[in-house]
């Protein structure tokens, strides 16, 4: 019966691993924590459950840009009554949406919005069949994307007619999973932990002495290898420089970063999807909401700050189940930069100064954290909190560094961090004898002709049948 519904609403004949179990539990009104790797159709779990329960669904989502993308994608799939309640709406639109809440089947909301007493109360009056906490790892300060606002969810979620909750995440350590259950007060929740290993993604690592050598290597790689592929770099400026460099080879490449307008980012995604672009040079802003199945290469010009982040980024490859290569490029300097990135927890002096209302120059993320601590904890607790956080951050850094340095199997190192075991496989990683050339398709035409543009033809193609 479930499969027939899947076929009916989505046109798929079978579920991906994990989906069916999660949906069954939700239909039985159980609370669920589900760890489903990127690309395995997390959103289908609540979309289908909503349809089957014939009740509206509330989706709490921490990232504004992701929320907009989810709404777009659902509309594209044919779900019409979908809305996002967030700060993108103008005041009039907001009033309009709020007045017609009962009209919607799927309501996306940011955690901040739930703190608004009026909105929070209005939402509780709706007969939701399910509450989704998306990107649930953001709840935990041990996760890689902590949002203090998420912690306040637990007060809002305590009400009598509350429907079942499903907490969804793609990466989480056991500590994070425990936090999720704690904060959401769903101690009895069923757990679905899909194996996060993606064996079709082959892992490669390459060492260099200078940053310039990496650039040369990327040029060589991209100009001789067929995409589609993503190159992750650590800054907006680098995405632009590298793109300019690669364009010289007449490669169909574009930059993607958070500094671009939403419209431009959307266009780049669609061009990539339509194979008008072969390579994307991006910051970590690229990824969520990229629904391309045949990405063959993910190159990290700089290692992601955390293994959770790395796992999500490489997870964008090989959604079609065919082989793909994930390569990380390393230099000694990268390790120092990483260390610096992890060294950002407020020090004891900063905490004391903040509590004593002494003004001090701190980063935005520290300011946010201190504000949260101040509102919820005594000074001594806050100090301990920051010390623990520092220890955890250091562990995360050590794990990332270890991935860059280890002489052991890369896959085993990666999975160990998530406390999962590896299944031995052929051509697993460069430490286990992977020959990357076996997984690269050679580009036949290295010197592609310059794209010719014809305005009249383009108009014809767009508007005439």
């Amino acid at each position, binding site marked *: 019966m479930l499969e027939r519904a899947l076929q009916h609403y989505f046109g798929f004949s079978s579920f991906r691993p994990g989906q069916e179990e999660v949906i069954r539990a939700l239909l039985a009104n159980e609370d669920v924590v589900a760890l489903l790797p990127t690309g395995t159709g997390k959103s289908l779990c609540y979309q289908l459950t909503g349809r089957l329960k014939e009740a509206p669904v509330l989706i709490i989502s921490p990232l504004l840009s992701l929320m907009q993308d989810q709404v777009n994608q659902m509309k594209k799939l044919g779900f019409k009554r979908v809305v996002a309640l967030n700060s993108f709406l103008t005041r009039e639109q907001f009033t309009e949406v709020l007045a017609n809440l009962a009209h919607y089947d799927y309501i996306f909301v940011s955690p901040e919005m739930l703190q608004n007493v009026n909105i929070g109360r209005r939402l509780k009056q709706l007969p939701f069949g399910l509450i989704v906490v998306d990107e649930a790892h953001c709840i935990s300060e041990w996760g890689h994307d902590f949002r203090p606002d998420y912690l306040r969810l637990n007060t809002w979620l305590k009400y009598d007619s509350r429907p079942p909750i499903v907490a969804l995440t793609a990466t989480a350590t056991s500590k994070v999973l425990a936090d999720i259950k704690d904060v959401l007060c769903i101690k009895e929740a069923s757990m679905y932990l899909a194996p996060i290993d993606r064996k079709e993604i082959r892992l490669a690592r390459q060492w260099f002495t200078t940053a310039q050598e990496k650039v040369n290597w990327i040029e060589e790689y991209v100009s001789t290898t067929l995409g589609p592929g993503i190159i992750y770099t650590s800054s907006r400026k680098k995405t632009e420089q590298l793109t300019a460099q690669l364009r010289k080879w007449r490669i169909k490449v574009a930059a993607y970063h958070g500094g671009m307008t939403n419209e431009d980012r959307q266009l780049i995604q669609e061009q990539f999807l339509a194979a008008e672009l072969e390579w994307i040079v991006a910051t970590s802003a690229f990824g969520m909401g990229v629904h391309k199945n045949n990405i063959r290469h993910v190159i990290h010009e700089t290692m992601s700050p955390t293994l959770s982040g790395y796992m999500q980024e490489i997870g964008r490859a090989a959604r079609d189940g065919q082989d793909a290569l994930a390569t990380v490029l390393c230099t000694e300097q990268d390790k120092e930069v990483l260390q610096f990135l992890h060294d950002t927890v407020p020090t004891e002096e900063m905490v004391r100064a903040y509590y004593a209302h002494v003004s001090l120059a701190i980063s935005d993320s520290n300011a946010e954290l201190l504000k949260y601590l101040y509102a919820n904890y005594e000074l001594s607790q806050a100090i301990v909190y920051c010390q623990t956080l520092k220890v955890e951050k250091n562990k995360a850094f050590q794990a990332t560094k270890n991935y860059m340095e280890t002489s052991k199997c890369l896959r085993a190192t990666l999975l160990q961090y998530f406390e999962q075991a590896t299944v031995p496989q052929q051509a697993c990683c460069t430490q286990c004898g992977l020959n990357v050339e076996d997984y690269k398709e050679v580009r036949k035409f290295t010197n592609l002709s310059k794209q010719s*543009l014809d*305005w009249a033809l383009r108009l014809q193609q767009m508007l005439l049948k």
Partner: protein
Amino acid sequence: MNFQLLVRQILLIFNSERTISAPYHLLKGKKSSQTLEDAVLFHLQPYYHLLPFLTRESYDAVIAKLCQQGDLQLTNERYTVKPPPQQSSHFDGFSYRGGERVFFARLQLLVQTLSQRNAQNMKFVPVVTDLRIQRFVKQFLRRYTTASLAEDLYKEIVSLLADEAISDWQRLLFTYRLSGYEQPAQTLEQLASTKDVATIDAELAWLEALHYLLKRVESPLLLALLEGCIVSEPLTVSAAKTLQFLAQGYTLEQVANERKLKLATIHDHVIEIARNRPTFDITPYVEDKIVRRVHQAVATLKTRRLKVLQQTLNIDYFTIRLALTREV
């Protein structure tokens, strides 16, 4: 006209009578009375509100570049700029004030929708996220229901773009920024890179074409898309209200009291009205002979700097500004 030349042109016209930042505010379309007044006073209306998304960073970068090239010299509070080569442009920022971008966004969404409809695939992510634009296009499609809509629109665009005053480059910028079924638009940055020009220069070329073409639209569909995009009432809502009170015989102080606004704000309104309505009688607020004195001072001192005029004439700023609106 590229960005560097544009900034040089504006700096030249300001003739060091305004700060180095004045062109920035003008291009951004700052709504302060100083910027609006300057636009009229210096006949810089064409460039007003051309680049509402210009960042201070990129403006400062071009100023630095001009200095480095020796086209511009900064000396405390003043500057000297090398006159750019003479060239005409079709810009008319004052008449659009962002309306040209609204028009184009409507067109983008309409073309995308029609293209998807032709392909019989209505599942798509709209290229324009602005809900007002989405609502407009929805209403448009309810009004125009002929089967040949896409073809009619095609013909209208082709005949508009046939105008010889615009270049093939501008035609590319116009058409490749439209999205169709399985044909996502190119970003300005991408189009600029095909010609090795800066993104902002591509944007200016696109804007110039729009400013020129939109005034020549005579076909029904494009005219309907243009609805409300060209400013016909140049007064701000607030200034228009002040004008109503003045017409009923209120004094400036009375208007300020009645509207619970500062007198200075009402003064700004009067200037705005005088500037935009050549027939507006300013004599109740400034005597004719004072107006003439101000005009004489401008001629002898060869400057429109308010500070200089104020110090020489010892008349208040409001009176001077008002007199300047009637300068021949």
